[in-house]
């Protein structure tokens, strides 16, 4: 009897010891994993800081170089304009053609440099959004008029649905104009000859919604987000520009506390939509311009 009890006790002791050992082992594993993970996170944080520093340096470099390019480009552009306007004497047809080619390309370079400067400003958090009271319907119509030449040259059928009455909003007129120009020029660029482009503006009490659809080649679903990312370049065939137009557009819309996205189907075309509040300043009374 006594021996049996002793045996049972020994077994219970052994079980207890095993459990204790197992617990000690679990605790060691948890502690060591925790410590090791902490060290790895510290390493990742350190690497992130380094990358941020490099990214800032790169942005600064791009901004400096772009800035240096800007002034000479404006001087070339202005000089070409003066000669083309005949202020330096008569220009014959052949000369005019050459000068116009030069001017078109200088203008393109200026656009690229402006894109890069815009992006650098956004990255540095230096992009300022002014708050102006203006008629967005009038602005869109004005932009559409300036593109009439290109639209008729490509024989594009343009459908517009823009409220005729004044559609006043508080936003940065130049920046919103840049957004509309970006989206319109993209739509025209990717729409084939005799294709369709539609522009629609819908206004509610709180916000305005701008939609532009084209009958271009469309965008793959997996690229919907990528096209707005400055680090991605989605292959589209017609490559011209920095590929920064859409990232800048997105930044401008977001600085206005709005949203921009794309809906698209391959071979059918794309529809770019942005929505911005009629006044991006929460709770601000629309009575001052700053």
């Amino acid at each position, binding site marked *: 009897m006594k021996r049996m009890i002793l045996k049972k006790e020994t077994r219970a002791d052994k079980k207890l010891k095993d459990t204790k050992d197992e617990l000690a*082992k679990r605790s*060691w*594993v*948890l502690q*060591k*994993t925790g*410590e*090791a*993970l902490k*060290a*790895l996170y*510290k*390493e990742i944080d*350190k690497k992130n800081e380094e990358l941020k520093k490099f990214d800032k340096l790169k942005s600064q470099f791009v901004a400096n170089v772009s800035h240096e390019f800007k002034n000479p480009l404006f001087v070339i552009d202005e000089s070409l304009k003066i000669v083309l306007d005949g202020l330096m004497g008569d220009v014959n047809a052949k000369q005019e053609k050459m000068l116009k080619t030069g001017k078109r390309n200088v203008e393109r370079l200026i656009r690229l440099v402006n894109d890069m400067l815009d992006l650098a400003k956004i990255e540095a958090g230096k992009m300022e959004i002014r708050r102006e009271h203006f008629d967005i319907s009038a602005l869109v119509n004005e932009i559409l008029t300036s593109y009439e030449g290109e639209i008729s040259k490509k024989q594009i059928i343009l459908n517009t649905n823009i409220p005729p009455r004044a559609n006043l909003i508080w936003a940065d007129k130049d920046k919103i104009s840049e957004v509309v120009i970006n989206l319109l020029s993209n739509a025209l660029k990717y729409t084939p000859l005799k294709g369709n482009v539609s522009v629609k503006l819908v206004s509610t009490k709180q916000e305005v919604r701008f939609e532009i659809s084209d009958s271009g080649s469309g965008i793959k679903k997996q690229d919907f987000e990528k096209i707005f990312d400055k680090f991605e370049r989605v292959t589209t065939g017609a490559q011209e520009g920095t590929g920064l137009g859409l990232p800048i557009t997105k930044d401008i819309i977001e600085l206005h506390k709005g949203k921009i996205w794309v809906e698209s189907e391959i071979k059918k075309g794309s529809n770019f939509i942005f929505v911005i509040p009629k006044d991006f300043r929460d709770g601000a009374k629309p009575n001052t311009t700053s």
Partner: protein
Amino acid sequence: MPKKILIVEDSPTVLGMLKDVFENEGYNVLPVETGEKAVKKAKSNNPDLVIIDTVLPGIDGFEVCRKIKNAGAPCAAKIIIITGNVDAVDAEKALDSGADDYCAKTSDFSNLIAAVKKLV
């Protein structure tokens, strides 16, 4: 007499860095790039401590640890398993193979130095 540390790491760059770091700390470092060489070197050199990377060509770090521990006396080295791929399963494997410590492999070696100093 400086303490001897055997380091097993397949990346020559990391191995070189670890060698410099521990020599700087006053240890006598024996660097090797494979598990097989490590087992042999552990037997012939009796290090006080072995640092082993988990991922190695041929036999992996846990197996190297087991082999060195099973060799018994005269080799009674303490062992630290290091890894760039931290998880609890690996930590448990390290313990089961007889390791005395388990550390993350980072570019900041302070954790590893502290762990080594605790053991030897």
